[in-house]
């Protein structure tokens, strides 16, 4: 094709006046809006906080009601169900935890009885389990979009380790968090996943979309207010509890510093809460501090940082939030180190237990 050779109009095609084009588009949008009202409402809720989201959420909520009453949402509903994705449009705002999960606020520490002289106080030593090719570590990696690339690198690096069995592909859910369960409900999703996959260790990151106030059902707590902190801590503790509910261990991956200083401040606050909750479970939860890892020598955000070999690498994505491939490698290294703190991965099987004849005189058995 050379210059000025633009596609010509097919004479068989009928044209229409601009006014009809406008009305045609208006009809198309109106029909599509009514048919897709449920999905649009969910999308509206996933937008960044602010006036725009509030307006969109209100308008689409009304639209969804009208569409539901008139049953106009049925074609989409039936089509989604036929695709096996009938739950796509379901909005769940429940923030509940299993009764076994302790989300109660921290009790003040009990006064410790002074140890008797000459009797040293022994801190409880967490048992570090060993996994082997016979007894593989069931590994699960999930979280918001920040886990996407690091999870893949972790899985790739552990691919040749015979003591590890990933129970699923990396399971990121972009644009989700703990503040807006209407967008994606981690509080109902995680218990289901943990029950189904039964991981020995879960790598989890959350918070990239949580730098906002609570809205809607939970009230209007401003980001960073005491009420916000209390509720966010409760949710972090609840999720952490769900991840450990079946005895699994957790690598809780913190949030990195961001290019936007205001966002970085917000993420620092969330990191503080997440870190302090993780500290309550030594040997069960390890918190990975990435905020400092992604600072340059002057303590500022940097797109380029030296890797393990000292080579300068682009470590962040163009948005100043996510990781580049090299950045994901840095996170993966930190995650693998944290996994190593929690469990032992033995590439060889333990020697088989030698069967011993029970002594007739002994009545006890060793575990």
């Amino acid at each position, binding site marked *: 094709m050379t210059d000025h050779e633009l596609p010509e109009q097919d004479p068989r095609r*009928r044209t229409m006046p601009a006014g009809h084009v406008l009305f045609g588009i208006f009809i198309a949008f109106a029909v599509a809006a009514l048919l897709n009202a449920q999905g649009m409402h969910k999308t509206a809720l996933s937008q960044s906080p602010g006036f725009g989201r509030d307006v969109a959420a209100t308008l689409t909520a009304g639209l969804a009601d009208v569409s539901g009453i008139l049953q106009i949402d049925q074609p989409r509903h039936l089509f989604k169900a036929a695709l096996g994705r009938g739950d796509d449009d379901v909005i769940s705002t429940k923030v509940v935890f299993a009764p076994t999960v302790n989300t109660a606020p921290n009790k003040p520490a009990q006064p410790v009885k002074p140890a008797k002289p000459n009797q040293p106080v022994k801190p409880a030593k967490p048992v570090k389990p060993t996994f082997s090719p016979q007894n593989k570590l069931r590994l699960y990696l999930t979280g918001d979009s920040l886990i996407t690339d690091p999870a893949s690198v972790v899985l*790739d690096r552990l691919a040749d380790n015979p003591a590890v069995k990933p129970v699923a592909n990396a399971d990121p859910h972009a644009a989700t968090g703990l503040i807006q369960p209407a967008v994606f409900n981690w509080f109902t999703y995680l218990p289901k996943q943990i029950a189904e996959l039964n991981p020995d260790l879960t790598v989890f990151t959350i918070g990239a979309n949580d730098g906002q106030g609570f809205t809607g059902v939970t009230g209007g707590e401003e980001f960073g207010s005491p009420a916000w902190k209390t509720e966010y801590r409760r949710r972090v503790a609840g999720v952490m509890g769900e991840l450990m509910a079946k005895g699994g261990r957790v690598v809780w991956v913190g949030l990195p510093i961001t290019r936007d200083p205001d966002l970085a401040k917000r993420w620092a606050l969330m990191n503080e809460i997440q870190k302090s909750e993780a500290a309550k479970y030594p040997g069960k939860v390890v918190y990975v501090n990435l905020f400092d890892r992604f600072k340059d020598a002057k303590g500022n955000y940097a797109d380029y940082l030296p890797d393990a070999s000292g080579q300068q690498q682009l470590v962040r994505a163009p948005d100043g939030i996510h990781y580049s491939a090299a950045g994901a490698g840095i996170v993966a290294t930190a995650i693998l180190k944290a996994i190593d703190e929690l469990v032992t991965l033995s590439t060889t099987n333990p020697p088989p237990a030698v069967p011993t004849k029970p002594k007739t005189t002994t009545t006890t058995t060793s575990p």
Partner: protein
Amino acid sequence: MLFPTVTFALFFLIVLPLNWLTMHNPRNWRIAMIVASYIFYAWWNPWFVLLLAGSTLFNQTVAVRIFRAQANRTRNTWLWIGVAGNLGFLAYFKYWNFFASSAQNAADTLGVQLDPGFVSTVLPIGLSFYTFMALSYVIDTWRRTFEPVSLSRFALFLSFFPHLVAGPIVRPGELIPQFDNPPDARRVDATRGFALIMGGLFLKVVLASACAKLVDPVFSSPKLHSSLETIVAVYAYAVQIFSDFAGYSTIAIGVALLLGFRFPDNFDSPYRSRSLQEFWRRWHITLSRWLRDYLYIPLGGNRSGRFETERNIMLTMVIGGLWHGANWTFLFWGALHGGGLIIERHRRARRAITGKAPPPGWLSWLVTFNFVCFAWIFFRAHSFDQAASVIERLFTGWGQPSPDITLGVLAAVAVGMGIQFLPTNWWQSFQARVSQLPYAAQGVGLGFTLMFINALGPSGVAPFIYFQF
């Protein structure tokens, strides 16, 4: 703002009547469209608008100076200022950190301390596209094939929102004359516009997203996937990148058509090509011809000897590769295509001498398509290590289960490949038949089509791959 969003739909509902209502007064119309385009661009980052405005003023100044200059030397000086300014602009935002880190690492290997300094900046969206369009304007003025127009016309040419962020890379001679010959508001080629927008949305929202479900995990963790999954992922990526980019271009062309403007086609069933030369006539057509007219031919094209021609081909393809992103893998991808084109030339020349018949069409297609898919591995990979892992996995993971090859992915690949081979007139005839329907019926049909596309796609909208370029 992204095309497949409610935000854009609302924006367009305002801009469309504004466009047609102001068109009778060209000056007001241009101002209205410039304002709309700047709002569209500012939606990502308001600061980007300053860069776009700066580029507009700079290139307009250079073009006018070239046009007014009497002496060739002055014209040439202004041309170089224009080229250097545009490439410098691109280099600073897109390539500085890449070259700085490469230089620093190379110096480090040699034991030399070097601190070139890194810039902490966001790559402005669409920069590569509008910089190339601005270069066209300056160079065409220098070549005397186009005369500079008023600032408002040029500002609209550069910022016109349908093409602003990811092309097509429109030439001044194609678009600016259309500004001065307003289309007939009673005869809008709307059905074609609707069809192109729906087709583009289907490619992007349904096909590209479905392919990504296999492509992303395989390229991220090659070792965890079987050879079969890897092979299907490589083919799926070919469909994904076509659907993603052709999808955007098609929507852009459709949107422009509803406003009354014609853009050049950007894709023409590229995967039916039987040679790499043909592939580059069908893939990203507006970039290919830009590289041909503003790089390959000025370098000498095929007018000199064999060595010079092959050098020009390789340079053009390598630079074209690097245009896509600041990474050695893009450069290598360009070099692979350059090498392939050179080999094709050799084979053609040999056949001309020996009189040997060309290979059968199906074999040429098979070789070309698989070569293109193989090269895409380097385009998709973040690093050579990752590309090597994927290639290694093509051979070392046989006999393993392939749970990630789902019916959805296979269907997307099949449909993505199938549409390459649809007869061209089928699509035209379909549009002609639909155009006979009353506008209200077309509107209802569009509404249902939007519902199906939305329901088939994932929740949320993934960014377009080509936005990063």
